[in-house]
């Protein structure tokens, strides 16, 4: 465990410098346990891929590194139970039609798999949210079929439409807003990934299990109108 200050009001408690799924799962449980300690000077507990960040209230008078160590060690000492896992499964309808699957053709060329095989492999896989970050509702997921692992696009797209599901290497991301991005777009969901008016603004949370359910264009339009 290494701790580095992110300025004087946040500290990053790191457990791994490389992606390790067991460490990642521990980090997510630890974040829940640290949050549950209810320290009044903590504003945000943010689980990331290999560690967690603790953000402090500006009125905090102590040393953020030693306070973070104390909180995390306290949580570890009390034991992190697997029952702290959310164990929630989010099913995401995805339309893989060409108008949404902007890079399916290219993925097909790179992997040598047919369009149908790619959709079959992508939609039968079990995924897990490894980290929320970059933008509100933006999820990084692990669990992609290694046969679908393709590098990022050489030239990022200026605009990746909101709701796009994209893959690169062995990860999947979802784009909550239309932004530029270099991942290979494999389909699109009609669901709003982030809606500030919703009880749960973000469709995903760290640790969620995710499944993708193929839908046709008509179903996509129906769900898109509903939102």
């Amino acid at each position, binding site marked *: 465990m290494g701790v580095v200050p992110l300025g*004087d009001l946040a500290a990053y408690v790191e457990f791994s410098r490389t*992606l390790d799924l067991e460490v990642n799962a521990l980090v997510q449980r630890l974040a829940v346990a640290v949050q549950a300690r209810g320290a009044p000077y903590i504003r945000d507990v*943010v689980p990331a891929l290999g560690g967690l960040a603790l953000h402090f209230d500006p009125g905090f008078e102590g040393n*953020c590194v030693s306070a973070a160590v104390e909180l995390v060690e306290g949580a570890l000492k009390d034991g992190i139970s697997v029952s702290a896992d959310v164990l929630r499964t989010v099913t995401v309808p995805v339309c893989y039609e060409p108008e949404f699957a902007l890079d399916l053709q290219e993925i097909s060329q790179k992997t040598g798999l047919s369009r149908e095989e790619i959709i079959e492999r992508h939609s039968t896989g079990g995924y897990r949210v490894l980290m929320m970050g*970059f933008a509100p509702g933006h999820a990084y997921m692990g669990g992609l079929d290694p046969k679908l692992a393709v590098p990022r696009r050489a030239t990022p797209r200026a605009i990746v439409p909101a709701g796009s599901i994209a893959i690169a290497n062995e990860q999947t991301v979802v784009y909550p807003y239309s932004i530029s991005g270099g991942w290979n777009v494999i389909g699109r969901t009609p669901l709003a990934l982030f809606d500030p008016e919703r009880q749960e603004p973000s469709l995903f949370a760290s640790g969620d299990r995710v499944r993708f359910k193929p839908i046709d264009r008509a179903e996509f339009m129906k769900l898109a109108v509903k939102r």
Partner: protein
Amino acid sequence: MIRVLRPGLQTSVQDQGRYGLQHIGLCPGGAMDPVALSLANALVGNPVTEAALEITVIGPELEFESETLIAVCGAEFAGSFPHPPGTLPQSRPVLVPAGGRINLGRASRGARAYLAVAGGFDLAPVLGSRSTYIPGAFGGFKGRALRHGDALPLKADSLELSRERFGRLKRKRERSVPWSAPSHTLADREPIVVHVLEGQHFADFDANVQRAFFDTVWRVASDSNRMGFRLAGPLLARTATDEILSGPTCLGTVQVPANGAPIALMADHQTTGGYPKIAEIASADVPRLAQLAPGGQVHFAKCSLEMAAELRKHTREAVQAQLRGIAWEYGN
């Protein structure tokens, strides 16, 4: 109600930010200079958490439907009253008459000012805050910067509050007061000195690059915004070649993308990032950096975590003393 005659460069509603949502990727946002926002609020008798207008480099022209107690704090603007004619005094309470117009003009020192009104704006909080999050198009006034013709709603009791509070001020001169609240965040000269801690990946840069980071007078690039300040100067090449695992970022993180031009993350920053973090700005100095306009110059000085905490304490105590002084003028 306040009518927007001209919106200025980027005028948006901001408060002290929304917290507890970084784990779903939403940054706290809020005022780029929360110290100036707190002062503006205190000067009209509001709690420091109330929302105000954040005005950037080129200010708006606004018309007040009814008599309104306002205060403008932070960057200095060549502000004027086109109607009734006169100059707009800053960093103090001003009772704008019904039908009065103010024109902020261009910033002469600093980049961001906050215009607070007695009682605040009648806008619903979104996820616990009235701050405008422009990339997500929510919060504040319609989730966006102000436009020509917008009508900003004030609280129903705004007129009574304005009169009652102005009436309570111990010392008055015409429609304002004979004193002003000095700024904590405006610099007398540039380059400003900003204190930083070594970032998580500082050691990934070789000694020459590390030295260049501290020796350079950096300029705030023109494509800087509420998300981040791009810093123009020498390009910083990372020596280590191993891939960096995406990790959490923070307000004031200085990261170095592949092109070597560092970016200081500001209020609307991303919550995680995969670029090496060369430095972390002391929290007390972030609002001072936020007051640099494009072209503004900054020099980084290394400090320890203890010193950064000391700077934070010093700023907090100075601001609290000033807030007490303003409350005293209101007879509190």
